[in-house]
């Protein structure tokens, strides 16, 4: 904001930043996300008790309230809640990133195919499968998958992925069905471009901004879902820290030992908030509206 006022030159990146930062909340989002990413990466250096993130218990120091030694207090195992919260950013981020990395390519490709071949059997087949997966209650599906496999982070991610891709398929399907009738797509076809080119070079780039926006928003949702899953015991296994299970487990000690669950809870909110704000900023950035 200040930047753009001082520098009224209308450069491309300057304009992008102007659009993005017109809403100060977007900048807040970016700052939060960067903060979370860096503190997750640098956890061993920025936390006071890295050992507390692993196999460590000290019942003599259990349930200490927040103090200078323990910023967020200690949990029922005597571990530093601050340290564990920062470490827990890791599994949350990994969860979000991996799930999206699985879900987006699959969902998007299927959506593109179904949308492009609308009203053919490809469309019907893909979209019905999508509907089937959409109609299974996600938590039950996740539970089923992790009971067939093992309740660890990898399988939790797999489970979330299985329930998540249909949303991308739906989203892209809607866009692809309308884009395929655009004149620029038809122009490419009439030039003799391959289906692959049409799908991935003509149609896909026009869905990207929406997909990207959804991805940032979804980062938050995936992390939330991850938290809900760890409530039922799916996800990162103890003693590794996961925000969801920290809240779920800590909630048992409310309200007296509020710090055990409140700080990780705030951390979840912070991440989700960060990604949501960032997502809104990105959608502002891509908005076609001239500025």
């Amino acid at each position, binding site marked *: 904001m200040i930047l753009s006022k001082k520098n009224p030159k209308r450069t491309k990146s300057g304009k992008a930043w102007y659009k993005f930062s017109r809403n100060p909340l977007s900048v807040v989002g970016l700052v939060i996300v960067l903060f979370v990413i860096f503190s997750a990466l640098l956890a061993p250096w920025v936390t006071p008790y890295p050992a507390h993130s692993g196999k460590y218990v000290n019942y003599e120091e259990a*349930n200490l309230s927040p103090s200078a030694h323990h910023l967020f207090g200690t949990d029922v195992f005597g571990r530093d809640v601050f340290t564990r919260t920062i470490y827990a950013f890791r599994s949350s981020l990994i969860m979000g990133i991996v799930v999206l990395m699985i879900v987006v390519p699959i969902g998007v490709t299927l959506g593109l195919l179904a949308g492009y071949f609308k009203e053919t059997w490809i469309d019907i087949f893909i979209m019905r499968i999508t509907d089937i997966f959409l109609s299974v209650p996600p938590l039950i599906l996740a539970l089923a998958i992790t009971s067939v496999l093992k309740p660890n982070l990898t399988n939790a991610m797999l489970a979330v992925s299985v329930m998540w891709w249909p949303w991308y398929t739906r989203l892209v399907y809607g866009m692809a069905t309308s884009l395929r009738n655009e004149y620029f797509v038809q122009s490419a076809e009439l030039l003799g471009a391959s289906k692959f080119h049409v799908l991935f070079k003509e149609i896909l780039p026009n869905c990207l901004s929406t997909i990207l926006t959804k991805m940032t928003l979804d980062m938050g949702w995936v992390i939330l879902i991850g938290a809900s899953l760890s409530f039922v015991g799916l996800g990162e296994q103890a003693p590794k820290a996961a925000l969801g299970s920290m809240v779920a487990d800590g909630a*048992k000690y409310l309200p*007296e030992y509020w710090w055990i669950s409140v700080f990780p809870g705030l951390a979840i909110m912070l991440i989700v908030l960060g990604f949501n704000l960032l997502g809104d900023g990105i959608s502002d950035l891509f908005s076609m509206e001239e500025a």
Partner: protein
Amino acid sequence: ASTSEKTIRLTNAWPCYIDPAIAADFASSVSVANLYDTLVFPTHDGEVVPHLAESWTISEDGLTYVFKLRSGVKFHDGSELKAEDVKFSMDRLLAIGQGYSYIFKPVIDSVEANDDYTVTFKLKKTFGPFLYSLVRLYVLNKDLTMAHIEQNDEFGELGDYGKRWLLTNDAGSGPYQVQEMKLEEYLHAVRFADYWKPFDPNAPDSFRNIGTTETATVRTLIQKRELEISDFRQPAEFYDNVAKVDGINVAKLFGGSTLFTMMHTKKAPTDDVHFRKALAYSIDYDAIANHIFPGSHQCQGPVSFILPGHNPNVFQYKRDLEKAKEELALSPYADKLDEYPVDLVWCAEVPDEEKVALLIQANAADIGIQVNVIKDPWMKIIEEVATPETTATMYLIFVSPHYAEAGSMIQSKYHSSSSGTWEQSEWLQDEQLDSMIEDAIDTIDKDARFEKYGKIQEYLVDLCPSLFLIDQPENYAYQDAYVDWVPADRAERGEKVNPVMGYNQYMLDIKVYPDKRDELVK
């Protein structure tokens, strides 16, 4: 608006089955104990006293038991309880084959009603604790049950044996009768006016067994005085915190419950006794007893100190890293620990177990053993332990006796017949041990029996199939200010409480004072 009503509300982990042929777990046991009567009644000191049976005789060979029934006992529908009903109850229990039938199945030969008030039990073999086990035979109203049979071919012409109906109704003669059974939600029972024993004027008019154990939920309920007695598997912090609330107290009832880490003796690396002993020496028992489960104490062997037949002289492992390392060195796995990680499963429904699990993990790490801590829901654990292949290396589990004697614990914990159940994931399959246990249990003379129990306990401690962690009291938060709860008072005075599961929640041992409650709420 609420209640000047005398009511007791309990929370418990569900499901809860009130059919005596199916009931076996805690919530169910509490319920049937109040809805039904038994021939004999368990007492605080582990004895039994006449109840429906006024007296009994036992044959010389210990194979025939003849009971003389009390007359004038009424079922909830007003009909009289007769010997035929007792016979019917046992037959039905054995036919259905669930619930507590496993206690009787190996021993009962037949039950006969000699006349309306005399019933004879014939046993296949001698069974020392038979009289004690009869606290698990709940007497059903035969006519009422038969009237509600649904026809399907499950039990031939007996149809479903009344199972459907008994799911939400009772056919008992107990002090309370079902008013409403909402599956998955609550059981609401009210006092049976025609009960054959007198009620104290302050005995509860009704009780409600509520199916939740969510800490936050239980916490709010008890604080709102909408719950009189909590369940007992809440985390220690919960009890610390509620104890600070005005009028709420925490009762610590030693009911024979013992926390074990069961080790798979047929799977590497816990198939090696030295490895197991190394673990046993690495554990910080004091930390568990003092910090995780305050009020509990370290076990002495596999049998809880409160059970008749406990051997107070067996060896106790203590944390001793030197010794642990010595033992580990003797183990064939000593130099390839990395190849044999150990899984430790704890039960998701008992949050405090995680503390123990993580402690064991940290303790084991001290001698170089890698332990993976796994949280599994109860149902999953039951599944896994069914076969030796799917059973994990270690489980952290609370075990309680089925009837008040060391034999119950020893048998259900270590006899081959119990392997594959959650009570024995060790897969001991030790023939010598099996015959020692069978011999002990078949011994009718009590002293001789207890002598044999003592030997078995020594044998087991040496074999070290499990880590004998702590004898744990069941912790109940309850409304001390307006509820008089006999077991709680006894426990407070350091006296023994009823070791038979379900009987500490016997409503006739409780008195409520609603006016005191109303004062508190205001």
